[in-house]
């Protein structure tokens, strides 16, 4: 039995192999291209991929859309910032502790709003996000109000902290890759299967003795924690957080990322983040044009590839291939 067939047999092996290959390539990039500003961009891609992957898990598996991922990004960022800045917990630990807070909030909110679906769920999660933003703005004793929090400790532990982009690059990308692997595994496991089934009919799933509601809350929590980890990594990288960090516009931007990359593809989320980051970076100084480009791109992608760019291009490649052989 060759390695390839061994890998093919098991989804976990296949996912691991793909992610390992991807991570290796990513880690080799600085070796080949050296140190440069692009590292900064790549770090943002690693960070923003997390909320995008989180939302992709939710929308891809359960077919639902939440506008709360910006809020959980903010909760992760603020919680870790407060724990590390005010209490002095080290950033690695505070990042982890922050996720417990995110998970608790997500569980509480999920238990309440996940009975809703479709536009109603979207609006309910939007309302929650607006409330979070207000609380952050108003609870200035804790969050620094509109001014936000400054001088958040850099990521690090044991007396060593990351100071340069290259260090962040080598810390953050493995984290993103591991979470990508987690998401891929989850999606190809029996839990992913159950969620895809719930998407088609909750009563049938219930009739099989599966607690559909629990699964929905579970995936909502996991998906929110992805956003929360992204927030914490963001806070310890840029060193400040403000109420704009996880605003409604940010949540909408994540949805646009998925629109570009495909709602049911985890890899697509990465592609979407890369596209948005490049656009942000190269349309710098032309915010009005950036808006025009972004808006027109979204419309064009949706019209040409309704399932998103990545799935669309894959379909296109397939049809061409079959076209040639036929």
């Amino acid at each position, binding site marked *: 039995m060759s390695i390839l067939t061994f890998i093919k047999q098991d989804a*976990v092996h296949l996912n691991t192999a793909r992610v390992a290959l991807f991570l290796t390539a990513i880690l080799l990039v600085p070796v080949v291209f050296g140190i440069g500003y692009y590292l900064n961009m790549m770090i943002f891609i690693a960070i923003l991929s997390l909320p995008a992957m989180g939302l992709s898990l939710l929308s891809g598996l359960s077919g639902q859309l939440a506008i709360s991922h910006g809020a959980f990004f903010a909760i992760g960022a603020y919680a870790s910032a407060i724990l590390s800045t005010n209490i002095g917990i080290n950033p690695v630990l505070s990042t982890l502790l922050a996720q417990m807070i995110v998970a608790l909030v997500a569980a509480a909110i999920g238990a309440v709003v996940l009975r809703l679906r479709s536009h109603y769920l979207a609006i309910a999660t939007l309302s929650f996000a607006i409330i979070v933003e207000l609380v952050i703005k108003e609870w200035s004793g804790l969050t620094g109000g509109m001014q936000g929090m400054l001088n958040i400790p850099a990521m690090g532990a044991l007396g060593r902290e990351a100071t340069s982009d290259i260090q962040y690059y080598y810390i953050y990308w493995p984290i993103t890759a591991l979470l990508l692997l987690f998401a891929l595994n*989850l999606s190809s*496991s029996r*839990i992913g*299967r159950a969620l895809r089934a719930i998407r088609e009919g909750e*009563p049938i799933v219930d*009739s*099989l*003795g599966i607690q559909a509601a629990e699964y929905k809350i579970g995936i909502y929590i996991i998906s929110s924690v992805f956003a929360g980890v992204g927030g914490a990594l963001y806070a310890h990288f840029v060193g400040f957080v403000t109420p704009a960090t996880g605003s409604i516009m940010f949540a909408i931007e994540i949805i646009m990322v998925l629109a570009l990359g495909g709602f049911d593809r985890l890899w697509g989320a990465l592609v979407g983040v890369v596209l948005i980051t490049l656009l942000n970076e190269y349309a710098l100084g032309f915010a009005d044009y950036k808006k025009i480009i972004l808006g027109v791109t979204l419309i064009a992608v949706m019209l040409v590839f309704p399932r998103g760019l990545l799935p669309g291009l894959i379909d296109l490649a397939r049809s061409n291939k079959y076209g040639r052989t036929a």
Partner: protein
Amino acid sequence: MLRVSALEKRFGGLAALNDVSFSVAPGQIKSVIGPNGAGKTTLFNLIAGTLSPSAGDIHLDGVSIAGLPAAAIGAAGVARTFQQPRVFASLSILENAMLGGHRFHKGGFLACGLGLRHTRREEEKLRARAEKWLDFAGIQSIKHRNASELPLGQQRYVEIARAMATGAKLILMDEPAAGLDETETKELGEMVRAIRGTGTTVLIIDHHMDFIMSLADEVLVLNFGQWLAEGTPSQIQNSEIVIEAYLGSDDDA
């Protein structure tokens, strides 16, 4: 094994089901018949937990299951097939059947995401279990096809494999022969007997009299939400009350 006592379901002021009591012995095929609106599907929904009863009780192996959530009743060993086959259209047939065995395994979100070894072993077991019942239902050869690609008749077998994979003690089948031709109905009868052969109890609703009469061990007749008659097929066929009820309604023959 199933005992339904004085069961009642009201929607607003209307009683869809009123004071219905009966029981099903283990390993039996029991059929529920009655004109449209007799409350047959309501009865199934109550047993399966999709609806909760207004009054009365339902016992499964001596344990009351009335009013429990559907998932808990599913876990207690009641599975069902639906009037319109309801398969998970975007999943493969194998995956549909694997969902039947889903509840036996414990691997949670974290274990599955981490791809822990035991979750992968579970997955193997799940697959083996699913394949066994696909084999039983005779659709093993097409297991990789998408469930949505199948004709209605075959979707019924996917539902059966899925229900059997849950390890159910009792299967509720709501008009499984609807839309089937004669040969197919015959095959389905064989399948139902095979299910009984595994020791599973079957409660079945259907309109095809020939089909039911040749298949059922016992028949329960409902009319306007009321218990009308109960007995062996031949007793029922000769019951004047039943004949009258059926003649009185012009929907069914």
